[in-house]
Structure formats: C-alpha cells, structure tokens
C-alpha cells in the first residue's frame, strides 16, 4: 500500500507597482522622477502578508501480489516455473480531468489492473535453454469484451562453449559463447487521453452555456460531449524479437551484441472524419502500426600486465530506428506529406531557401501568410514545394533526423598502477537534429511562458539581417519587437535545424591510494585522494551553445564541476 499526499500554500506580499508617466514624470534638468502608483485600488497592494491556499492532492495505491515458484533439478534437466498474480488499484482523491483541469466523475473512479503472468524455464545440461512465458493482463479502461489481453513469449538459447566439442584449444581463444533468440508479445493500455473508451463522457452541466433576460439573469450551463462511446478500443500490441550473442574472448574481452525488432499494431489513432459532421469529440480507433529495430553492443576489456599495470576499456553502442507503417492519412496530392514510412519522430517543416533581399522580392514571391506581420526583406523565404503560389501546410516536408538520437554511444578507460588510478568516460550521440527555438531565443520578443523580453545573443547581434548587412544567409533574420510581427520566421523550418551530434568527455578522475605499509603506521584501513571533473571537453559541430541545452540558449546550462576529495577508512 502506498499513500501519497500533497498540499501547498502561499504567503506573500502584494507588491506595489509604480510607473513614470512621461513627459511630466521625468525632469531632465534635475534628473528627478515622479512616480505614479499603478495598483492603488484597495487590496491590490498590501504591506501585510497574504495567505493563499494551494492545491491539495491525495492518492491511495493498493498492490496485491501472489507468487508461486517451483524449481527443481533432475539430473541433466532443470525446470523452473513461476506464476505471479498482481492486483493493483489507485484512487485519486481529487478526480481532476487533465484535459479540462476540472473535477470529473470518471477520473475519481479507481484505476485498476489485473495481471496473471507465468514463466516456464527448461535447461538441459546447462547447454540448451528453453523458455516460455505469458502475461494475461486486464485493464479497467476497456469494454468488457476487450478488457483482457494475452501476451505470450518464447525463447531458445544455446551455450555453445559448453558443448563437448568445444576443446581447450578453442576455449583459449573464445572462452565463452552463447547464442539466444526470443520472440514475445506485449501490450499497453496507457493509450489515448480518455479515461474509459467504452463510455460516453457527457458533461450535463457545462460546456455550451446560454444566458437570457433583460439583465441576463437566467443562465444555464448547457450540455457538451467530451467522448463518444467506443467499445471496440483495446490493448495496443507489439511483437518483439531479439537475437543475442554473448561472447568472451581470451577471458579478457566481454562482448554482448543484440539485434532487436519490434512490430507494434493497434496503435490508437484519430479517425479521419469530415469536420462538417459536427462531432464534438474526436473518434479514435486501434488503427495504426509501426515498425522499429535496433542494435545494442556492449564491450569490456581488461588487461593486467606483469608489472602491476592494469588497464580497463569499456564501450557501448546503441542504434534504433522506427517507422510508421500504418498511419491513417488522407490522400495527399503531394507525396512528401505522408507520415507513413518516415522515420519515427522525424521533424516536418518548411524548406527555407534564404532570406528575402528586400520587401519587393518578398511581395513578388509566393505568399507566406503567418500571423498579422507583413513579410519583408530579411524574412525567411520558404520553398513552394507544390508550386501553388502560396506557402501552406502542404509545403511542409520531412527532413533531418529525430530529436531523440538514433545512435547513442559511450566509452572510457581506467588505468591502475601502483596506487595511482586514472579513469575517463566519454559519451556521445549521433544521427540526431535539433531546432534553435526562435520563439525563445529571438531578441526583444516575449517568449512563451516568460514575462520579460528575451535577451540578445551575441551571435545574433553579430550576424543578423539588417539594412547595412543585407546578408541573405545571416544567422538571424530580420529582428522585430513582437513575435506577431515575425511569425513567418518562427515556423519550423530547415532554417533553424542543426546537427545535434556530439561527443563529450563526461567524466575524468585521477586518484592515489596510500600504500598499505604507510596506512598501518597511521592506523588507517584505507586512504585515497582524488581529483575529478565532469563535462571537461565537448566536440560538436554546433558552436553557439551546448547542444544538450536543446533549442533554447537560455536553458540552464550543463555545469562543469571539479572535485578534490580525500577518502579515509578507519
């Protein structure tokens, strides 16, 4: 059982705000200001503390679990059987609908899951492995006939190096070798935003109000529909396979390599229904499918030399890529608009050509209408991919790599010699892109979630389009005082995409342990001294700021830390 509770409150002064009203408020000759109090209405500004109660949340979680295990060895045969039953419930005291932030009956009902899982392992002579497992899972979110999902798994393994033919000669070179393969199904019930797919969610007391009367005194909240019943919705299913080699070479190099695939189907997607049907909520169905695959490799190498020098190397590498294979899409007249078969997470946007040289060129080019600002010289010129004379969503195409890296890798080494140790750890990622976020980095405009104007980055100050420097490929396009005026330049486009690859020296440490002989004299069990540092070096194509900050230069930066430490053991 687990109970969670949360509350907060706030005690604060209401600040006094003043302004200088020009021209009478400022006297240039004496350099004195005349302040006008802005929030003078009663209660707006106070010198005493105010109390505001905040959010109060509580939830209770109950988890029942039963296990049965049977493990026996009969000569060469080894059997291991396992059953697990789990019954879970979570209740939130404040059933708040995350979509509306309002209390709702459906969200006050308990969240429940039932699981019966089993596993059967059989090993013959420690060489041949067989495994079968299953999961039978129930979720309260689906209609009765779709509530349970059955997800079996199976696997085979062969420890080649334990075969009798694996003689001493071979095992000196390849000391261990294991091959294995598994296939399995899995399910997910945490899909979509609806609480119960099979129920309609009708708000009989809100959503479409009207008011009548000479003084508008008669008001009724109206009825709105938030969800249509859809008893057909069920588990999202995936079938995964995994092929793996475990290899040890000369007892020094451990290598694990895996290749995996995953086919997901029944992904919950919104149906394409004409907007003019007047439905108040979107309709979903288990329609989508996607495919992904990847490679994981881990290697460790240890070598000890006769003179006491020990070296260790370790490395890891993962690659993964997914693609949508079944995504319900309209019949686009433009082939590049289909999401199907694009890389999962690949950004869509406009193709930026360059900046407009002047207002005349901007006016004569295909219309780019974004917001109320007029497109002028120095604004980004987009390519009219479908040649219809205007830049619209139909000109957005996929480009670049996903923001989540497709390749992540790391390596490092440690050297030990006579009480000294030196270790490093590098990490990197590749096949990834990120966007400079123009809404948060554009100078002088107020970014979303901020109250003040954004500062001016040195790089933008030095290289931006202006009348003196009409550089069609300047780093930053035309500047403006409000985001509404340069909405054109804020669109996701190739102008702002950058290569997100990097390699970083994440960690390095140099240490020295005092020799035993010395320790005994001072009656210490252990003593070492070390110097460590994080984020020492960074290699990346992008120089303006740390790639790991993402698109916003003003995010809190990664810190470089140095440490000097002494470890004593009595």
């Amino acid at each position, binding site marked *: 059982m687990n109970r969670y509770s949360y509350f907060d409150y706030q005690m604060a002064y209401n600040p006094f705000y003043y302004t200088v*009203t*020009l021209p*009478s408020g400022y006297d240039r000759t004496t350099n004195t200001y005349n302040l*006008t109090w*802005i929030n003078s209405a009663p209660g707006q500004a106070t010198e005493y503390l105010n109390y505001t109660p905040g959010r109060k949340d509580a939830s209770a979680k109950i988890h029942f679990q*039963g296990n*049965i295990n*049977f493990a026996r060895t009969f000569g060469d045969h080894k059997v291991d059987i396992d*059953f697990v*039953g789990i019954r879970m419930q979570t209740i939130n005291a404040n059933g708040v609908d995350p979509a509306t932030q309002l209390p709702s*009956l*459906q969200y006050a*009902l*308990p969240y*429940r899951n*039932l699981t*019966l899982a089993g596993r059967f392992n059989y090993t013959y002579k420690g060489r041949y492995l067989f495994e079968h497992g299953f999961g039978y899972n*129930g979720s*309260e979110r689906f209609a*009765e006939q779709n509530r349970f999902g059955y997800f079996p798994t199976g696997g085979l393994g062969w420890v080649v190096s334990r075969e009798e033919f694996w003689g001493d000669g071979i095992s000196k070179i390849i000391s261990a070798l294991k091959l294995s393969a598994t296939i399995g199904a899995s399910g997910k019930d945490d899909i979509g935003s609806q609480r*119960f797919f099979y*129920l*309609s969610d*009708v708000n*009989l007391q809100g959503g*479409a*109000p*009207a*008011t*009548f*009367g*000479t003084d*508008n005194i*008669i008001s009724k*909240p*109206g*009825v*709105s*529909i938030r969800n249509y019943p859809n008893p057909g919705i069920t588990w999202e299913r995936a079938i995964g396979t995994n092929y793996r080699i475990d290899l040890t070479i000369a007892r020094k190099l451990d290598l694990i390599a895996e290749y995996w695939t995953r086919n997901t189907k029944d992904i919950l997607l919104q149906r*394409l229904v*004409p*907007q*003019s*049907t*007047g*439905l108040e909520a979107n*309709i979903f169905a288990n329609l989508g499918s996607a495919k992904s695959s990847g490679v994981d490799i881990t290697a460790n190498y240890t070598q000890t030399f006769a003179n006491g020098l020990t070296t260790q190397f370790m490395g890891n590498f993962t690659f993964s890529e997914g693609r949508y294979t079944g995504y319900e899409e309209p*019949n686009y007249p433009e082939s590049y608009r289909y999401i199907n078969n694009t890389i999962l997470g690949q950004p869509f946007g406009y193709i930026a050509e360059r900046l407009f040289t002047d207002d005349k060129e901007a006016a004569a080019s295909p219309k780019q*209408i*974004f*917001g*109320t*600002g*007029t497109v002028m010289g120095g604004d980004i010129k987009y390519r009219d991919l479908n040649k219809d004379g*205007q830049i*619209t*969503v139909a000109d957005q195409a996929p480009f670049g790599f996903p923001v989540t890296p497709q390749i992540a890798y790391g390596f490092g080494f440690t050297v030990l010699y006579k009480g000294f140790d030196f270790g490093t750890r590098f990490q990197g990622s590749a096949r990834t892109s990120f966007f400079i976020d123009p809404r948060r980095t554009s100078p002088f405009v107020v970014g979303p979630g901020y109250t003040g104007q954004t500062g001016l980055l040195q790089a933008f100050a030095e290289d931006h389009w202006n009348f003196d420097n009409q550089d069609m490929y300047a780093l930053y396009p035309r500047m403006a*005082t*409000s985001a*509404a005026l340069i909405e054109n330049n804020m669109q996701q486009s190739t102008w702002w995409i950058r290569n997100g690859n990097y390699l970083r020296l994440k960690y390095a440490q140099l240490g020295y342990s005092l020799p035993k002989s010395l320790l005994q004299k001072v009656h210490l069990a252990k003593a070492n001294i070390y110097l460590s540092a994080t984020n020492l070096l960074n290699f990346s194509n992008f120089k303006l700021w740390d790639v790991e900050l993402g698109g916003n230069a003003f995010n809190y930066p990664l810190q470089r830390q140095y440490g000097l430490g002494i470890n004593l053991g009595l």
Partner: protein
Amino acid sequence: MFRKYHSAIKLFIAALMFAGSLSSCKKFLDVTPPNVGTLDYAFRNRNEAENYLFTCYSALQSLGVASDIGFLSAGELTYPVELGGNLGVYLQLPRGNVQNINSPVLNFWQGTNGGTNLFIAIRRCNIMLENIDKPIDLTATEKARWIAEVKFLKGYYTYYLARLYGPIPLYKENFAIDASAEELQLRREPVDEVFKYAVQLMDEAITDLPQQISNPTNELGRITKLIALSVKAEMLATAASPLFNGNPDYLDFKDKEGSQLFNPTYDNQKWISAAAACKAAIDEASAVNKKLYEFIPNASIVNISDSIKRLLTIQNAVTEKWDINPELIWALNGIFPFQGQSLPRLYIENSGSENSYNAPGTLAVPISTTELFYTNNGVPIEDDKTWDYTGRFSIQTSDPAHKFYVVPNYQTIKANFNREPRYYASIGFDGGYWFGGGTLNSNAMVSVQAKGQGSISGPMDNFRTNITAIWPKKLVHYLSSYVRTDLPAFEPYRLPRMRLSGLYLLYAECLNEANGPSAEVFEYVDKVRAKAGLKGVLESWTNFSKSPGTVSNKEGVRSIIHRERRNELCFEAQAGWDLRRWKEMGVALSKPIQGWSFRQTTAQGFYQPVTQFIPAFTSRDYLWPLSDAVILNNKKNVQNPLW
C-alpha cells in the same frame, strides 16, 4: 507417501486460490457505476431539456462582434497590430495578409481562431429535434415553441455558414457515429439549395414562435416571430444580392462531380421574394408596436439642447436598453465589449490615472469612414455643390453655428463643419463635443482634443494611443463615463443585429432592385433620414446634388440606398456583410486606411493624413477559405475559388 507429493499439493491449493481470486476479479475491473451521465439524461425531463435548448442557443450567443466579420472586415475601424487580442488580429483582415488556408482566422467551419464551430451547433439542433418527444413533463405548447426556436437556430447557423463559405454540406439529420466514411462525406450543396433550406427552416419556425416575450426578465433574447421574419428577410435579400445571384465570377466553381455550385443566371424573382419578406417583417413590427426610436431626456440630464437631443436619438437607437427600445428588433444577449476601446480620454486628469488602461481609447476610425457621412444637406460630401470638398482638410476655426458640435474658437478642419447629425453622433473628432462621458449638460460639455502628447485625448504609451485620433462615438453609451481619475463606468448595452431603420432600408433596397425607384422606395428611405434630421432623398438631391439625375434610375437609387445604409448602420457590424453581398468590398477597401498625425501638436502638423496601411482585398476574399485539413478529410470537398 503423501510427503512425496507435499509440494505438489501445496502448489495445487495455491493455484486454486489464485484461480478463485481471478474469477471475482472480472468484477474488479468493472469500476464504472450505473447511471453515468449520457446524452439520454439530457432529455429525461423538461428542466434537463431546457438546458439542452440553451446548448442550441450557445453558438448563437458566441457570434458577437469580437468574431463578427460584419464588424471586423469592412475597414470601418482599425487597431494597432502590436496590441494583439481579437482586434489586433481580426481587425487586420483588410490588410489582406491575415487570412490563410493553413489555419484560417475566424474559422466557423472548425471552430478555431475566434470562430464558433457552427457544424457542432447544427448537430446539437438535430439532437434536440430528435429527442424533443422524450421529456415527460413538457407541454405541447412549449414543445412547439422549442421546436420552432431550434429550427430558427439551425436555419440561422446554416445561413451564417452560407454567407461565409457559399456552398456547404447540409446535415439535415444526424449520422450515427459509426457510419462509414462514405456516408459521412457529404458534398457541398449549391448555394441556391443552401439558402432554400435555411429559408424553409425559417418558415417552419415562424408559425410556432411567440409574438412577444411574455416574461422579458427571464426570457429576453429568445427568438420571437418578428426576429424570425426579419432574419428571413435578410436571408432572402442576401440570396438575391449580386454575390449569390447570378455571380459570373463563380461560373467555373464546380464540385468534383462537375455540378455548378453557384447558379450563374440572375433571377429578379429573388428580389421580389425578398421585398415581400421585408414587408411581412415590417408589418409584424408594427403589430408589436415597434417604431423608430426617439430620445426622451431623463432626470439625470442637467440641460439638453435640441441639437444634442437629435444626436442622442441617433446614438441611443443603438445603445438604449433592448426592452425599452422600440426600434430594436434583435440583439444578442452579450453586452458590447469594446466601449473602453471606443472612449477617448475627455478629462486632462485621465492621462495621469492608471485607470485609463481600462479605457484606452484605441479603437480608431479611419478618415475614409468619416467621409461616408453626408453634408447637412443630406447628400454625399463629394456630391454637394455647396460644400467645399477639395478644401475639406484645410484648417477652420469653429463658429457659433456649430456651438453644440465643435468647441468654440478651436482649430480643426473644414470637414468637421456642415455635416449631417449622424456624423456628430457617430464620430469623436479633434475639437468635437462629446455629450456624456460623465457630464450631462449641453452647456458644459466635455470634448475630444487630440493634438499630440499632452493633449486631453492624445497619444500616451503604446497601449493607450488611438492611431488615427478619431473615435467611434456611436459605440459608447452616453451614460458611460470616465471622469478624471475615477474608475471608468460603462453603461452596458447590446449591439443591435437588426433594428427597424435597417429593416426599412433593406425593404427599400429590395423594392428598388425588384422594380426600380418608386414612391414606396423613397418613403422608407426618407423615414430613416427624417429620424436623422435630413430632408427626403428627392428634395435633397434635387437641391444640392451635383448630379440630381441620380434619383431617377435604379442604379442611382441603389447607390443612394447603399450609402444610406452604410451611414445609418455605421459601426453596427453590418458593413462587412453588406459590402460582401453587394460585391462592393473591393471598392470600399481600395482607399488607404489613413488617420491624422496624432503626435503633432499644431493644427498644421496634426491635420496631415498618415497612411496606416493600404488594404489588399482581392476577389477571393469574398468567400472564406476552407482549411487544408477540411479539404483533405472529405474527398468530396472543393476549395473556394482562388484560395
């Protein structure tokens, strides 16, 4: 012996227990209690069903000026882009760089960017009509009234969509949610069909609607017979207007099956039906004692001259309370939201007060709008042979003849003199008196003085500057006040959607289109002019017009009625619709949107027109675009021409 099987038995018992717990667990996942609200519960009794009736009305009440193309798109008013908000975006429509197909602004098809989703509204009306028999305690009379109201609403939503988009799909009944894609994908019906269906719904509604609201305290705003009759008249007039009646521009506008969506043949019969519908509405209006408004001073007024009384007759025909305004046929229940933006600062102390952010006076009137109003001879300023049109921007100091309109000895321009009362009632200009604003005494009126920083009404920071230095006085109730450093107090009012003057002019327009000029045409125009203190059309044009022959032919009289309608209904959210249906928006938006040099403090400097922007209206803007997503989600949909 049993020992050998001990563990197996234990396993067996455990498995039994497990299975037992599982079977009870089927119930464990049934967490939803019975009677969770579904749509059926909305029609269990009269009270719940009335709530759903309000749901049907809900979309109507969200069609106020803040999203009304009639108010926003005609270039009657302008507003700084930088201030954002509804006005900062939607009032920029005349710039021609706002509307788009990615995410159309004021999108009433999908209910985004300020628009209300009218297809949802129509579906709700259908749901109400399907379920109206269910409430057990609903009387037959009330049921008939509700059905009539819902039919009116469905007809009005259909008409609203037709005005915007032209051809639309007609969902006369609802489809099941799980209907196939084929069934759900309806084609856009030709405009004639759409208008026919909307008018048919209106006819069905009219019989069962009440003639009067018997309990206005609780029900004012519900639809009456008169409202439905006048909306029907407006629908028929719209269908008869050049945009929809034989418009040659849409000859090639066809759907994917090749059917023509606009009938290319002009049909005069449409105007005849429209005129008949107007007459029916006018007759109904007299039957329920509607008449043109006349201002009656109340006790709070210290002193009022006849000239000012005339102005208040014009102003208050719009701003008077609905239940006591005999001219007001239909308004929405929401109150007009932009009085603070329309009110200039009228006291020098206003400027220093933080309260002025509540009355920033930023809604600006372009010079072109002020030039629509007639001279005091009741003819257009460019057409009056006694009025100095070319010299209208030259400086003139006011004279005693204008002592109720212009501050004595104040330097302003010629254009502010010898104008019709509607000009002084509608426009707040530099040097103009402002009866109201907290001072209700025609011998001690406050005035607009807008020359530069430091003047009473002049520019302050970006949030409190009127960029043309001209204010829409008509949109401020005369009892709304912002005195010195007090908190601004706005007298609430509802902007009319239909008032008797408008209906008279519509009737005159339809009659003239149907049969050419006649005594009856002039009779109805002259009624409206008389209220505004002007002589009749024939007399005024004969005596003062440079081209007195205008009154003798259909085209001439058409131009007179159109101009009369623009003056009489200026700022009342009509021009945007009228100019569209007349196909005159292109001409109306051909002039630059100009204002005065509001930062200049001298008369010479101030009265230099400054161009705020040059409108860009093209023929595609007559119909609203469908978004790219709407086109893609229904393979039978076609985009509107040139989008």
